[in-house]
């Protein structure tokens, strides 16, 4: 083999080596629609998977379970295998394998310790939904706020402590009733004088307006909404 021929061959090998994983990952990126075959039922499942800045991101829609644009977590793509989860009360896990020739992802849909076969067909480019992001909050909101509300016959004490960071605000959300509950907060926003603190995992949220040095609004647990006023804790 001449040096030129060897060079051509090396380049060809490199092109193939680089192109193969690219093709596999390109093949996985997209919108996937199909079903999970639950006994005596079929769940429609729509998954969007994409690569952004070298990382996999994704969201899922399951009309029968009230999921729309919910974030995928723990995404692991090792072509032809694709795994991801949906955190929260439902606790869904999908373990799929790309069947490239058929443009299908097929595998296992797991929820609550139950397993069902799932098959998804690629239907187009990905339409990944991104979660809303924390915004900064006003300087006068920083610090701890306290209030009470009554539900089902007894009083709960609420504390929300706001702090600003470079990438938005955070909040420590604590409800003390018969138990001391520290709620995981996944969204803090302020739009004008409207402040929201959401704990999607627990179904609790607070929404109130910052006026006259009070946060006046309501606490929500699922569908139950109770008026509540938070006042600043003097430091």
């Amino acid at each position, binding site marked *: 083999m001449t040096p030129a021929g060897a060079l051509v061959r090396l380049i060809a090998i490199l092109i193939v080596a680089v192109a193969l994983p690219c093709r596999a990952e390109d093949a996985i990126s997209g919108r996937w629609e199909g079903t999970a075959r639950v006994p005596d039922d079929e769940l429609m499942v729509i998954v969007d998977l994409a690569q952004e800045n070298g990382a996999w991101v994704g969201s899922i829609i399951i009309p029968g*379970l009230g999921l729309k644009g919910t974030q995928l977590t723990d995404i692991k793509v090792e072509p032809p295998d694709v795994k991801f989860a949906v955190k*929260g009360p*439902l606790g869904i896990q999908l373990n799929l394998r790309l069947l490239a020739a058929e443009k299908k992802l097929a595998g296992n849909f797991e929820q*609550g310790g139950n397993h069902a076969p799932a098959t998804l067909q690629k239907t187009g480019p990905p339409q990944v939904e991104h979660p809303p992001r924390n915004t900064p909050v006003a300087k006068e909101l920083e610090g701890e706020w306290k209030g009470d509300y009554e539900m*089902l*016959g007894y009083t709960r004490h609420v504390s929300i402590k706001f702090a600003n960071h470079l990438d938005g605000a955070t909040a420590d959300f604590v409800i003390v009733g018969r138990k001391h509950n520290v709620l995981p907060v996944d969204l803090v926003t302020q739009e004008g004088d409207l402040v929201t603190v959401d704990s999607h995992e627990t179904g609790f949220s607070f929404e109130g307006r910052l006026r006259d040095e009070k946060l006046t609004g309501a606490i929500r647990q699922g569908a139950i909404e109770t008026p509540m006023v938070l006042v600043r804790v003097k430091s």
Partner: protein
Amino acid sequence: MKLSGIFILPIAVCAVTPIHAQSMFRGDAVHSGTYAGPAPRQFHRIKWKFPTGDRVISSPVFKDNVIYFGGDDGNVYAVHAATGHQIWKRATNGPVPATPAVADGTVYIGSYDGKFYAFNAQTGALKWKFATDGERRFEAKGLHGMQPKDQTIADPFDIFLSSPVVANGAVYFGSGDGNVYALDSATGDLRWKFKTGDVVHASPALADGVLFFGSWDSYFYAVDAATGKEKWRFHGGEDPMIHNQVGFQSSPVVVNGTVYTGCRDSNLYALDAATGKEKWRFFNDLSWVITSPAVADGKVFFATSDSSLYHVVDANSGKPIVRQQGKAYIFSSPVVGSDVVFIGVLNGTLEARDPKTGDLLWDFKVEKSKQNNGWVLTGDRKFNVPFLFHSNWREAPIVATDQQIRIGGIYSSPLVVNGVVYFGSADGFVYALE
């Protein structure tokens, strides 16, 4: 003093009311929930299973080798206890999730058609029927947090009808029209009716000439059985916001001068039968006590809904003795047989537990429960709540509740006779296990 308490009360009860130990809800007029005679401490086999046209919420009762029960298919059934063969069935015009009482050759039972029936126990022939002011389920605006919150919604968990108690020539029962009725048991003529503020689907208990029952109006009542005059009332919890923690759905038991009753306000109450004064309460962390307690050997046996706990507490003090974590909601009232407690679970399982430790001796799962269609249950047989109840809008929670029911939940309180345990399932069958 304890001796007098033990011996005088049964004599007093015997003097006032005939004992129909297996022929009415919870066995007898005081609703003890206890059955003498052998009970299977081990599961051997299905003796028979009897199919009906819809779920069986009713609890079977026994009289003269016949099992009687109601079906949500609208029928009242008489089935041979030994063979499971149908003797007769009689149709009503509504589901019959009530438990019959059998006395003096007559089967007494109410239906969702708003009528109360008396059938000949041998033939099923109608003796008389009485029209109440109409049946309905408990309902409220924004019930349990369902939306729209200003819409009145009927409670899908109001699943039982009041079961009658028969004594002294009268038959007593509650109704969705808010009344408790006393009828002449021979003719069906009205003796008196007592108006409460809401649905009465608990079954009244009778002891020492006093009728005890709770209503969804948040009150528990003691009424003179002869006159219908109120003797006292006790106020349970209220929940004006979502009406979840309110109402007596549990039926009471009366033992040794104490009334024990569960409540949707999450308490099991022990009340003085003479005065209505609270002796103790056992709080269950916002979990309903739908089960009617059983009392045996100085202990109270009951279970909870959402927390799915099986409890045994001291009858005098309410102090916990046994606490066992169950798998799914428990609406079925426990019964105490000789050396074994039976209780149904809404995941379609009948459990046999040791009375002293609460340990599971054996369990039996109906076929529909094993199939787990629609993933009503998780892999470890708990209710798959986030999978079913993903929306509180409109009828979604009601549909989800119906899905729960379709796996064969056991709401029926078991009956123990001659070493056989009988119960109904929401899969539409009545089972006899030995």
